[in-house]
């Protein structure tokens, strides 16, 4: 077996935990995209949490990898085609709507005054 608490083992476990957390976060957001009405969302979010909790005590690294890959495949399959993104975030409707003008540009307010005045 891989050495119980070697650095490589711990590093791999930590990387897997991070993958799981990011997967859970994306899956939860996706659930909110699909189930907009709150009472439906609570139900679905509980079910999602149950699915994650069922595999909580798996210790074998390869099994964990397979489970995470399967989870990510399920997430990809269920992704919403039109997710809600906060407007100013990339992908939202207000993103780069009013970009900051490049520096060095100066606006001259001469109100149409002509040079022969």
């Amino acid at each position, binding site marked *: 077996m891989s050495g119980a608490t070697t650095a490589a083992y711990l590093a791999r476990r930590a990387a897997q*935990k*991070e993958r*799981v*957390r*990011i997967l*859970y*976060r*994306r899956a*939860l*957001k996706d659930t909110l995209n699909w189930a907009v009405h*709150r*009472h439906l*969302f*609570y*139900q679905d*979010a*509980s079910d999602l*949490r149950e699915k*994650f*909790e069922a595999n909580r005590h798996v210790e074998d690294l390869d099994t964990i990898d397979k489970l995470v890959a399967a989870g990510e495949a399920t997430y990809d399959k269920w992704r919403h085609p039109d997710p809600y*993104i*906060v407007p*100013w*975030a990339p992908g*939202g409707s207000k993103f780069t709507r009013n970009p900051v003008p490049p520096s060095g540009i100066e606006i001259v307010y001469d109100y149409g005054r002509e040079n022969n005045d």
Partner: protein
Amino acid sequence: MAMRAFVLRHIQLPGQTLTATGSKPHPQWYLRASLRLFSSHDDHLTKEEVIDRVLDVVKSFPKVDPSKVTPDVHFQKDLGLDSLDNVEIVMGLEEEFKLEIPDKEADRIDSCNLAIEYIYNHPMAG
């Protein structure tokens, strides 16, 4: 079912509530929240507002004991939460402040301190 009470409890309704003894002045920041400044210039949240709202969100999480929540509490060490609960709290904060936190940053938010700092320094925190 766990998320239900969480979100129900942290929906705030600004407005007058008359008590039996007459109208009670509500706390200062409620008025500020209902006063919309249409300019984006000075419209940044104050630190106390951020702290109040973040603590409210954390307190209304069903697995959390509200009396233990302080502005420097660590979600996993002090409150005994799980990493998945951490993810849920960060999502609740995103919904409260209408933010979109990138995945890598959200993973790093582990305690109330970090959350308050991140939200306070975020230019678009609503």
